[in-house]
């Protein structure tokens, strides 16, 4: 499995792999728009972009997991098309995904050659001797100190990753895709991995390296491609490029002008108002550490950061779903202990979770029931739910929030995403909550409903609601928030007042 000799590389510069004019349309979103990329021999090619920029889609097309709408894949100058991942593997591509896909109950050697185990007696019986031998050889090649007979699930994250790399190499990969490989590794393990990736390059492999850690990208990669909103923005030589260059390209120059309107635009914000909620050096082991923040009535506090920065976990902690391991939460200056979301609801908090389908709605229940579940007890007279009162509340909010449904008892799954989200907001407003924690409140919602929800949030804060807004959409945070807090890797990186909040400022804190 030696790479081509140096002279042949010089003589035949046909790139090892090319993507030509790849486009991919998903319902409502153009995931990739005419993206062309060239991967060369013995090169580490970095791929950066914000969440949703199209990196994952691009890689899944490369690995044959989904076909492109238009465009071609070219392997050493020959057009290829993959009907499935098996064909991509056969063409010498290998992937080390962020979420490793080993079978945890199986041994290391079985995982390395899963589906490709050599047989004997006409292929009926697995030839364990050869399997062990081949797995050992490839594990040794990458210096993995892992027993071939160990159970994959018992290994550390770093070791499992090595098994995944070994699998790719054992199947003959010459082009290796790494998706956020250092996200779950310690600093030392990450250093080991980066050294291994460099060694693979020396061995003749081409590497595609996806990461949010810009520093890592700059030291490791030879060339870097930046994607934004499904488009290729620029391709840079790593030498001479700075983090600032990357950030600027990731968010795009033109949008930095989209700074929020002056703070005076909103009902004047008063620093002397006592906070509704204060969080003091709150920690939750494994998720975030030492977070302090306050949210006052009548203000929207934005919480920005990358996926995995710990924002959702912080929200769940404040809402009583996760138990903090340190620090405390104060409501109007007095410490509160939240053992269950119902405690938080009693304290006047409300949480609109990130994954609406999985965590927010009860798909088969009606709109009316979805809206009133938290207040069913208060709707009771003599143990019976008063349907007339319930109906009156529901009709009121259907009108107030302009929820489009033909019938309040219609299953909520039949509503569009935006209307579902409005039902969830109405659910909490009915509880008379005083603070809303919103986690990606407009993700996957059409533009119109998004504007309506933004307008609703502005009305609510004008009436004295306290809002903690988590959003990965920087534009949304900048437009809505009075202050922006930035989390990075489980820590609060800093606070930016609304008038200073730019996408660059936020992103450089979030990725640094």
């Amino acid at each position, binding site marked *: 499995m030696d790479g081509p000799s140096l002279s042949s590389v010089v003589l035949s510069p046909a790139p090892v792999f090319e993507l030509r004019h790849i486009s991919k349309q998903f319902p409502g979103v153009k995931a990739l728009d005419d993206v062309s990329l060239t991967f060369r021999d013995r090169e580490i090619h970095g791929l950066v972009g914000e969440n949703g920029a199209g990196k994952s889609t691009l890689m899944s097309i490369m690995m044959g997991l989904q076909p492109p709408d238009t465009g071609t894949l070219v392997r050493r100058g020959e057009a290829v098309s993959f009907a499935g991942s098996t064909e991509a593997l056969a063409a010498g591509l290998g992937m080390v995904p962020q979420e490793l896909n080993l079978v945890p109950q199986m041994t290391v050697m079985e995982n390395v050659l899963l589906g490709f185990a050599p047989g004997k007696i006409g292929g009926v019986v697995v030839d364990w001797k050869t399997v062990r031998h081949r797995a050992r050889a490839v594990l040794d090649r990458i210096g993995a100190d892992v027993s071939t007979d160990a159970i994959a699930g018992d290994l550390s994250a770093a070791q499992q990753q090595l098994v995944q790399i070994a699998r790719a190499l054992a199947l003959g990969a010459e082009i290796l895709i790494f998706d956020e490989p250092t996200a779950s590794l310690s600093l030392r393990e990450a250093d080991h991995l980066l050294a291994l990736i460099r060694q693979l390059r020396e061995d003749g492999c081409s590497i595609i390296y996806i990461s949010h850690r810009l520093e890592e990208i700059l030291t490791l990669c030879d060339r870097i491609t930046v994607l934004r909103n499904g488009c290729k923005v620029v391709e840079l030589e790593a030498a001479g490029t700075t983090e600032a260059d990357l950030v600027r390209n990731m968010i795009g120059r033109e949008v930095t002008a989209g700074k929020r309107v002056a703070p005076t635009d909103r009902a004047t914000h008063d620093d002397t108002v006592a906070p509704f909620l204060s969080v003091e050096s709150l920690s939750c082991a494994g998720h975030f550490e030492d977070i302090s923040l306050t949210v006052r009535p009548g203000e929207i506090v934005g919480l920005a950061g990358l996926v995995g920065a710990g924002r959702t976990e912080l929200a769940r902690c404040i809402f009583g779903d996760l138990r903090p391991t340190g620090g405390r939460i104060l409501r109007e200056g007095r410490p509160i202990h939240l053992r*269950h979301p119902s405690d938080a609801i009693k304290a006047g908090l409300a949480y609109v979770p990130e994954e609406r389908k999985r965590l927010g709605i009860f798909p088969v229940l009606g709109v009316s029931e979805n809206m009133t579940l938290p207040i069913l007890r208060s709707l009771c007279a003599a143990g019976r739910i008063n349907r007339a009162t319930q109906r009156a509340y529901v009709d009121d909010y259907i009108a107030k929030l302009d929820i489009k449904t033909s019938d309040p008892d219609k299953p909520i799954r039949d509503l569009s995403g935006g209307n579902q989200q409005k039902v969830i907001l109405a659910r909490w407003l009915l509880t008379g909550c005083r603070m809303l924690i919103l986690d990606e409140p407009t993700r996957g919602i059409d*533009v119109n409903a998004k504007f309506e929800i933004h307008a609703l949030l502005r009305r609510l804060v004008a009436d004295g609601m306290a809002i903690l807004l988590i959003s990965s959409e920087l534009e949304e945070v900048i437009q809505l928030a009075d202050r922006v807090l930035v989390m990075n890797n489980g820590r609060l990186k800093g606070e930016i007042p609304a008038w200073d909040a730019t996408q660059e400022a936020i992103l450089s804190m979030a990725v640094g």
Partner: protein
Amino acid sequence: MTTQTRTVDSTVRSGKPRLQRLFGFKESGILLALIGMCVLISLITPNFLTPYNLAIVMRQVSFIGIVAAGQTLVLLLGGIDLSVGAIAGLSAVLGAMLMTAGGLDPFVAMTLAIALGFLFGLINGVLIAYLKLNAFIVTLATGEVFAGAILVLTRGYAITGLPPEFAVLGQGSIGVVPVSVVFLFAIFAVLVYMSQNTPFGRSIFAIGGNRVAARFVGLRVERVEMTVYAIAGMLAATAGMLFVSRMSAGQPTIGASWLMPSITAAIIGGTSLSGGVGTVLGTLLGATFMGVLANGIVLTNVSSYWERVIIGLFVIIAVFVDMFRRRSQGRALVPAWMMALRPGSRRDDRKPL
């Protein structure tokens, strides 16, 4: 963003077909099947539609119907209880022993037996709700334990010599209506009301419909789940005691054949195995359908061996209907406890939110 603005929501389209409006209520399918079956049988034989025969049918239905009511609540929650038959048997045997060996008043003994059933169900509930063990496995195991305990207590012999006045529950009638049927209807009336009109009842549907979301709206998921298993145990014990009264003996075989019909009645009645969908009333109709079918087979001189074949075919039909319903909803086709039995499912649990 290039998202196109959707001006017309899909929900605005209204106007159900007339037929659907007429039979739009949830139990319409099983009700039509039940009526059809009754009409068919009474066309073949005049002996079906007599008060005497209907009383016999409903008395037969009452035992399994009461067990199935508890099973339905568990299924609505997204769980399953494989121990209902064994709980019925163990509570029944214990109740009978309290009357004979314990010398207690039969109705005190019955109350205690029902309380024991509640306790047995509570054990299931604690193991499933708080220790997060898999419902299928827990109730399979406790079912074995309870069934074994019956044999340990009785050595396989029936407990006889019960006070004669106890026989009224299983053998007596009020007019033409057997007392056990009064129990059946009373229990279903309470449960239908509870499931439709109380916060507790609605929380069962909410948890079965989306367990994680239920926690986020402040429902005490574990507490509800535990209580539902306890209620299922209590209802099983009630059926068991009624059957003791019917037989005038604490037979060690009581409940041994009740598990599968309890699930079958719920499924035929429209309850989905994945939780959140179904009605208590549907289960009563499902159990009645099964009783009518068994009766009709006897009356029409068809070999009774056919009964199980036909019931089995109806389950397949019911599951088909259920699947089509869920397909259109895009819900997971597999209930949570089945997912947990899959190899490698522990990885899924670790998936962060």
